[in-house]
């Protein structure tokens, strides 16, 4: 059975390289550098038995799972420190292509089954000239990510405490008539929350109660389920009555205190922190810079600044890990955040931030474009640090 499958694999392979439309240079160099004897097998019985020496440069390995459980295959240096390539999930009965750029040296493959048992291939040699385009990194472990989550949650706990004290102050202000004071305190508390963007999944129902938008609610801003910061914003900037504002503020303060109490018992998934390094700012792009989350306060730039701080908070929790695993990635992420920070800060005026729509076209393009560029620099972080959780997807 397996033999037949391998033969078919070979035929497919031959067809693939002969197929028109494939770039001739890429295909021929792959063939020349790594004559492929057919798919390599992975299963509980062995990790790529028969893997041969390779030429330096780009190689394509076809890997077939001939066993019964999913496998993850990595190409590692001989000390098993650095990862050069990763096939996250090869399901039983499937064949996948692993493309890797290897420098000269000694390497090996590791095959990790679903149950955590790890097998290693025979070591193999890569010979030939030094090549460009090699990327190696130390893979993160669940323990690494667990540490990052712990660090991150410590700063969130502190942030929540500040938030609760600021929503208390907001509520206190609504006892008086000073709308300017209420608006000021609203903004302070709102920005506290916007810095915590990294855990919105963890917050469960509280996230929507505290910071939900009217979109998706059948009655929009009039919907009874529309509560929290944006509800108060809407009332404050659309002549809401004192009573309405007081009621909405009281509800917000209650929910914030509810969250403070609930947070220690809420779980943060291990991959969340790396994911949020770009997702907080993806939201800024989608909701804030487009004005969608502006219910009247025109505080988009202050929100963007808070989201940058929130992103830095996630990056800080990952710093020890990235410093060890991929310092270049950390440096480029920090550099791009600094650039974005500088653009936002340059827009600050003595009275605070101007409204987004008051920016000149040049300012707007610089802001949108720099944020876009930052997102491109951040996007490798989750991919690189992610740990595949096949067993527990909670």
């Amino acid at each position, binding site marked *: 059975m397996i033999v037949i499958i391998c033969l078919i694999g070979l035929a497919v392979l031959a067809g693939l390289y002969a197929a*028109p*439309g*494939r*770039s001739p*240079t*890429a*295909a021929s160099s*792959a063939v020349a550098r790594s004559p492929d004897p057919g798919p390599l097998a992975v299963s509980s019985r062995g990790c790529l038995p028969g893997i041969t020496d390779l030429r330096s440069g*780009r190689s*394509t390995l076809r890997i077939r799972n001939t066993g019964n459980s999913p496998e993850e295959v990595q190409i590692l240096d001989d000390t098993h420190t650095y*990862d050069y*390539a*990763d*096939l*996250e999930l090869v399901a039983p009965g499937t064949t996948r*292509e*692993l*493309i890797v*750029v290897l420098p000269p040296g000694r390497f090996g493959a590791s095959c990790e089954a679903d149950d955590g048992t790890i097998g290693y291939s025979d070591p193999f040699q890569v010979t030939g000239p030094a090549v460009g385009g090699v*990327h190696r*990194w130390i893979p993160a472990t669940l323990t690494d990510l667990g540490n990052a989550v712990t660090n991150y949650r410590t700063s969130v706990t502190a942030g929540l405490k500040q938030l609760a004290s600021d929503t208390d102050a907001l509520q206190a202000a609504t006892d008086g008539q000073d709308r300017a004071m209420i608006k000021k305190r609203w903004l302070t508390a709102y920005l506290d929350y916007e810095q915590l963007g990294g855990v919105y999944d963890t917050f469960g129902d509280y996230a929507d109660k505290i910071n939900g938008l009217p979109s998706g609610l059948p009655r929009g801003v009039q919907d009874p389920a529309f509560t929290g910061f944006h509800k108060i914003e809407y009332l404050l900037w659309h002549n809401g009555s004192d009573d309405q504002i007081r009621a909405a503020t009281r509800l917000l303060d209650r929910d914030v205190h509810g969250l403070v109490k609930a947070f220690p018992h809420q779980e943060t998934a291990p991959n969340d922190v790396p994911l949020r390094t770009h997702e907080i700012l993806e939201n800024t792009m989608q909701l804030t810079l487009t004005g969608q989350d502006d219910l009247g306060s025109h505080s988009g730039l202050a929100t963007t600044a808070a989201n940058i701080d929130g992103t830095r908070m996630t990056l800080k929790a990952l710093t020890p890990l990235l410093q060890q695993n*991929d310092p270049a990635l950390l440096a480029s992420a920090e550099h*791009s955040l600094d*650039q974005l920070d500088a653009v936002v800060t340059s827009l600050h005026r003595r009275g605070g931030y101007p409204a987004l729509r008051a920016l000149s076209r*040049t300012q707007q*393009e*610089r802001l*949108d*474009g*720099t944020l*876009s*560029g*930052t*997102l*491109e*620099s951040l*996007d*490798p972080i989750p*991919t*690189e640090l992610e740990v595949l959780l096949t067993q527990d997807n909670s």
Partner: protein
Amino acid sequence: MDETPLTPQGSSRRGFLLGGATAGAAAVIAAGRRMAVADDTSQEMGGVLAAELSPYGPNQRVLLNEPSRATAMISFDVIATGRKQLSDLFAVISDRVKVLAAGESVAVSDPSRPPADNGVLGPSFAGNQVGVLIGVGASLFDHRFGLAARKPVGLKPMRTFPNDNLDPAICHGDLSVQFTAATPDVVTHALRDLTKHTRGAMQPRWRVDGFTSPPRPDGAPRNLLGFKDGTSNPSTTDTGTLDRLIWTKDGGSFQVVRIIRNLVEFWDRVSLQEQELMIGRRRDDGSPLDADGELTAPDYARDPQGLIIPTDAHIRLANPRTPRTEATRILRRSWNYDLGLDSNGQLNQGTLFTCYQQDIERQFEAVQTRLIDEPLTDYISPVGGGYFSVLPGLADRNDTYAKALLS
């Protein structure tokens, strides 16, 4: 004569594009005449030879191509600061153009990164499918990069003409990039690729996508007013003509982009005769009103008073066909666009008009000036666009766009 007549026979490239029966053949533009030749289908792009898609050579010859079936015209503003960053940006643009031209095997190459390619064309994409055309606007030569002294002679911001209704949101820009291909997915793939790699260094300013139609039933493709559009143009194969009308000394050219709304509802309420008198050609087969056949030249000398083709007909004002106006001729490349509806529920359709010339004032502006207040202006409304200097082509694989400007 440097006229480029269409071949009237069924074997014309447009006839080929219409019918699937001749699939497998690709068209070629040769010696001022278009004809079908047997060739590899993968080389076919809206009927132009693969060679015309190459970014290499003294000129960006992509601009000579007949309008492709699909296009995206996008203008960018540079947000990078300083000369060095600007050079880096042009290096990235050049790199992507080379990759798009060569094609690539794009299976996930680095598993610690999101996929390098957007996958819109599948796991790999062939080369020679997309034309990319790069131009720079006058604003690139302001104070930011110290390039004021390097501004190409004759490059300036697009001026406002009396019948214009320009929306600043869709005018001008530091760069213009046009993608052309036989299918919209190839255009989208290239657009996504280039914007991804240049994010943070330049920001899209405006964009209009366009399409051209198959011949109905033959000859030049029809615009949204129902008329054949693109019939009469200077030759794109006669080097003398190109040197006289299109290329600048350094191998560049000037691009004029005009986004011209067609008031199609209004137009459709106009009698056929009035429509034809406004254009100067028949709607059914594209013949000039004074002759039979799309490719027959009108003879204005025979009709000085404009009794047959009115003196204010579009084609007569645009190209009076006199020795004096010969030097004002432009190479027109127009696509149709469709942006849905306007605020009143009217169809927001129009012409993505582009034209190429050696000298904007001597050519485009002279033609546009003759067209001021022509009867057609009631039915069209220029709403955006810009003037750009088309850079020379890439000399080789190590060359980058704008090298001469930035060195």
